[in-house]
Every structure is written in structure tokens, then in C-alpha cells.
């Protein structure tokens, strides 16, 4: 799969950023990282554009769902937002906030791949 998707990866835990970014890199994504929801929101406020956001739920300063809500409120409705969490109750929080998809942790490449492909197809059309 060839792509040049711009991915924003949001997670407060360094090890999880490391693993997830390696997965996204396998899909040839250009990756920007944020350590919490506020950093993610700031990225958008600074005018950065992303094709996909992969966002953890529980983070200091601003949670994933809070960030998702703010990103959508800014008018960033096209960007695909995927919530991730080891919390069984996270899906509802993310989807209510405006996320497109939810993936339970640990994130598996075979789960992420069709989502990436969907974004590529949409971008190419």
C-alpha cells in the first residue's frame, strides 16, 4: 500500500507512541505526535492538516474525547478520527464526541490497515 497520509498520533505514554507510530510508518504515513489532547487541538489551531488522527482516551490536561469534540467544533469534519483505548467503556465516549471509529488496545495492524486504506481511497477520489 502506498500512501502519504498525514497522521496525528495522540498518546501520553511514550511506549504506546513508539509502537503505534511504527505501525503507521509501515503504512507509509507521515506522523506527527502529540502527548495529550490539548497538544492535538493546538496542532489544528496552528493550521496543521491531517488525514487521520489516532487518539488515546485517558490523557492528562485534556482527554481524547474532549480533544475530538474540540477538533470537530473547529470545523475539521473531514479528518478521520480513530479513538483507541484499553478501557472497555471508551467507545461510547469517543463516538459521542465525534470520532469515526474506535479500536481497542492493543492496536493491531490488521485492524488499522482497512481504516488507512479507506482514507487513501477517499483522498484519491
Amino acid at each position, binding site marked *: 500500500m502506498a500512501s502519504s497520509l498525514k497522521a496525528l498520533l495522540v498518546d501520553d*505514554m511514550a511506549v504506546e507512541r513508539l509502537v503505534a507510530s511504527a505501525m503507521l510508518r509501515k503504512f507509509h504515513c507521515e506522523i506527527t505526535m502529540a502527548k495529550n489532547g490539548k497538544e492535538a487541538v493546538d496542532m489544528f489551531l496552528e493550521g496543521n492538516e491531517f488525514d487521520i488522527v489516532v487518539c488515546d482516551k485517558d490523557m492528562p490536561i485534556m482527554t481524547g474525547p474532549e480533544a475530538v469534540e474540540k477538533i470537530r467544533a473547529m470545523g475539521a469534519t473531514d479528518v478521520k478520527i480513530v479513538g483507541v483505548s484499553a478501557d472497555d467503556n471508551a467507545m461510547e465516549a469517543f463516538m459521542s464526541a465525534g470520532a469515526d471509529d474506535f479500536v481497542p488496545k492493543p492496536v493491531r*495492524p490488521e485492524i488499522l490497515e482497512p481504516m488507512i486504506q479507506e482514507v487513501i481511497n477517499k483522498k484519491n477520489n
Partner: protein
Amino acid sequence: MDYSNLRRQAASLKKGLFDQGHLDEQFRQVEDLQDEASPNFVEEVVVVFFKDSGRLISNLEQALEKYPRDFNRWDAYMQQLKGSCSSIGASRMKNECMSFRDNCGQRSVEGCMGSLQKLKREHAILRQKLESYFQLLRQVGPAGAATRPAM
């Protein structure tokens, strides 16, 4: 140097980690992410994991003292650690995280303390075994890299 013997030792050590339940399939997923561009990726992930997890355990221990019976706070710390354990396949550690969270749900201080001690033991065991494993892999080095032990 007897690379084949070192490879066998490394393979045996890794097999033991899986057979004894310290690691699960997610660790293999992490291994699959290693390539020529990032030849030490797995070890790098493990180093960062133990740095993160050590910090979280320390923060939790402080919270247990500073915020008695604040089960929501304790649970939040453990939720973070559980996520990290899941990401690298640290299965037994993850199970102790879940046990701790169950004890938080039952508002059992004694249960939480017991789970934390077990978690710390699993953390130490996994750390020691993985350090030994990577030490063996480093000894095998580039000469043995073509036939790196596989599970």
C-alpha cells in the same frame, strides 16, 4: 564464539517467556515492526516500556500514600499502566493491573496493596528475563542476525 548455542539460549529464553505467560501475541506484533531501518526496535520499545512502567508504579505508590482510599485516582494510574502492558504484550503484568482495578472497584485497600505487590514482582521478573534475552541477542550480534532465533 558459539553463535548457534547463543541463538538456542535466546530462543529458549523467549519461548519460556511465552510459555510461562509473561508475554502474549502482542509482543510478536511488536517484533514484526522491527526491520532493517530500525534493527533494535524491539529492545528500544522494551526499554521505554520499563521506563514508563517504573515511573507509573512509583507514581501509584506515592498516590497510595498521599491519597488514601482514593480509588478513582489509583484506578486511573493503573489504567495507564494496563494500556502500556497491552501494547507490548506484557500479559502477566496486564493481568495484575486488571486485578488491581477490580480491587479498586470493590474498594478494597488490602486487595489493591496485594495486587500492587504482585505487579511489582511480575515487573521485576519480566525486566530481568528480557534484559537477559537482549543481552544474548547482542552477543549474537550481526554475525548471527541472519538466523535470529524465531518462535
